[in-house]
């Protein structure tokens, strides 16, 4: 067990966990922030995507000991982020979700994409969203919603 101080969505949080514990499980079980989802645990589905110092990261494979003082941003922090809000609005407008389980991760990946590439092409979308599995296959509307959010942001 070790103590870690984290910066999550702008707030500082203290946790005491085994150093090998992935950030995902710290968020979900220690901080009770269950918006970030477990889907595979091996970086193969994207359900656990958060931003680590602004970069889309699979939290299921990042041990807490490696987070350091990098800012952690989760789906729960998207309401305070202008791009996050635009993406959430577009998602609702396009009625993207089905079961919804993958959507926190999809939204986190989409926000990271739009921050880097405000006007993404289909190829940009396929590349950035390429590892985010949606078993309900909401892909068609995800594509539309990203383009819609991009429009809204200009």
């Amino acid at each position: 067990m070790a103590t870690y101080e984290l910066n999550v969505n702008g707030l500082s949080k203290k946790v005491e966990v085994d150093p090998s514990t992935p950030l995902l499980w710290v968020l979900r079980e220690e901080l009770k922030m269950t918006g970030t989802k477990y889907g595979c645990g091996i970086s193969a589905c994207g359900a656990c995507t958060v931003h680590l110092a602004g970069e889309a990261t699979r939290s299921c494979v990042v041990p807490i000991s490696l987070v350091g003082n990098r800012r952690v941003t989760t789906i729960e922090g998207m309401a305070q982020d202008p791009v996050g809000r635009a993406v959430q609005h577009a998602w609702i407008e396009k009625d993207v979700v089905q079961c919804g389980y993958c959507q926190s991760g999809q939204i986190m990946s989409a926000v990271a994409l739009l921050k880097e590439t405000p006007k993404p092409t289909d190829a940009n979308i396929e590349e950035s969203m390429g590892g985010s599995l949606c078993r309900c296959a909401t892909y068609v509307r995800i594509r539309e919603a990203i383009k819609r959010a991009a429009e809204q942001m200009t």
Partner: protein
Amino acid sequence: MKETQYARSSKAFRDGSINRRSFLRTSTVAAGGLLLSLYLDFPPSAHTEAQTPPPKVYPPDAFVHVRPDGKILITVNRLEFGQGVQTSLPMILADEMDADWSQVVSELAPAADVYRDPVFGIQMVGGSGSIAHSFTQYRELGAKTRAMLVATAADRWKVSLDQCRTENSVVYGPNGKSARYAELARDAARKPVPEKVSLKSPSEFRLIGKKVPRLDSAAKCDGSQKFGLDLDLPGMKIAVVAHPPVFGARVKGIDDKEARGIAGVRDVFEIPLMKGSGVAVVADRFWTAKQARDLLKIDWDLSGVELADTSQLWTKYKALARTPGNVAVARGDDKAIDRIPVARRVVAEYEFPYLAHTPMEPLNATVRFEGNKAEAWVPSQFQTMDQMAIAEVLGLKPEEVTFHTEYAGGGFGRRAVIDSHVPREAAVIAKRLKGTPVKLVWTREDDVRGGYYRPMHAHRVEIGIGADGMPAAWRHVIVGQSLVAGTPFAAMMIKNGVDESTVEGTSDTNYNLTNFHVSAHNPTVNVPVLWWRSVGNTHTAFVMETLIDELATRAKMDPIAYRRKLLKPEAKKLRAALDLMDQQSAWRNNLPKGHAAGIACHECFGTAVACAVEVSIENKRPKIHRVTVAVDCGIAVNPLTIESQFHGGLGFGITQLMAGGAITFKDGRVEQRNFDGYTPPYIVDAPVTVDVHIVPSAEAPTGCGEPPVPVISPAVVNALAKLTGKRYRSLPLKNI
């Protein structure tokens, strides 16, 4: 607020045409018709009204709850797992009730008799039955609620019923009188529930038929939606189970010294499984439990356990397919084919692998056992069965288990398991930890390796072609495990020794096939199997639609024209879908170089679907640029949801085409582990665009959850065949 809930009930519904006795035989719960129940909040003052007889307290097994603040809570009698019933069933009720949609909220019903599917007789989601079976039920509930509210207003105003009308949660009477539903609700609850109500004509619908956005979008976009796996209860422990490497193996010895050495591990013990046994690890946290499980050294007893092996099974299945099985259809002359010259015969052998469902939210169940009662939280497609199973494990009656339906991250059939093995595991563990809530978590590895797959199948088809290019004789043998043999469902689904789910989609084909013979073998294999979204149609439609396409090509006919010619005259829905798809896909005649169009159509669960896909080959894989799909599903309750079910169903169907879309066995062990080895479709594999066209209809609605699945893979390989000249008969699609 329980004491303020008031309920009335009346026998309102009869079950439908399907024989539900066979379901109920297994049930210890009295059958009983569905009840219409209303409960409405009393204003606080009602507590003191001593003269009123104490209202009959109903458990929350009711459908409409008009709150004093005007909010209308509508209870959904089945699981929401993406299909959108959480929005579409309330729409149906609210429409007949003339409720203000902006005030409608919905909740998922717990397990209770009143929430059983009106046709199946158990509480469940499956068979694309949500809308099909509950359309009239929810309309009548809405209309009866409205009638009671109107009767209350008419009484107050001393006017006749026909002087009142309703709109947006308000009753309007003569002389400018009006009353909000919320004001009337308390008295309305005391009105007798009308036996009969008249329902709206479709032209009067205000919600049904409109593109109504989902009610659960916002919560699913900001992380606040709780799924079963997100449940957190005071004092809750997490359990994981080490399952045997081969189905049915037993624990011989456990060395748990290291595992128990991890801080936060509470218990390690052997538990019985449906077959064989496993080792449960209980800890304060998931990560702790998983780490401890990784450190267990378990000696497994494999004696007497059959070791499934895919390559041996193929050999066996293909040999079986060359012999006739139990007869499902014998129409015309079985020997007619032998008289057709060999040059006009097609012999085709197909292979379909085991497929896992892998819903996005891994399987889980939470149970707390209190000795004389229990509480369970399960994302379940089968509430009635799961509640009974938990009760059985705990030595309780089903009604002693309070069963909460949790939102599920997908399911596709995987949460509708006849033996309820996941809730059973949770109950066994909770029993030992009496008083402590235990959340059982299956990791993705547990899920991929845990069985309950779409069974592997071999098909062998011999077709004799007539001089006109149309099939003149068709002999079809299907080999695959039964989904229901040895279960309570067998009596209903196995006929003449054939599991209907093995042959559906072929035996009931809409093509007019003369001299048609279908038989099936249902071998027993030590691999648990399960329905996978669209069940038998996953493989039968692929065989039928690729062969019809091949015959059309041989006959040098347009594939749509060929299908039209061969369809039975009574296949009205499929013809309508085919015609609409044809009209809407003019792009087929104007394709870029290297692109081809593929066609498929199929009817299942009462819904007919026709689709055209535009495909090219990129990086040695099919790239699906576009899908135009037409559907006849009767009245389209929510076209927006139907469209998303099509996006989803087509995408799910593509699982079959993925290079990594197969579960295989070697020496009894599953060779895949997680999404690295068993690979469902990602965004690049899915169609870039999908346009969905709905055949206008006034017929009763039929489901859209499963019917999109079967058409996509045959349509894609029919397009590939045009590009490569090859026919694709083995899935997954490894090499093009």
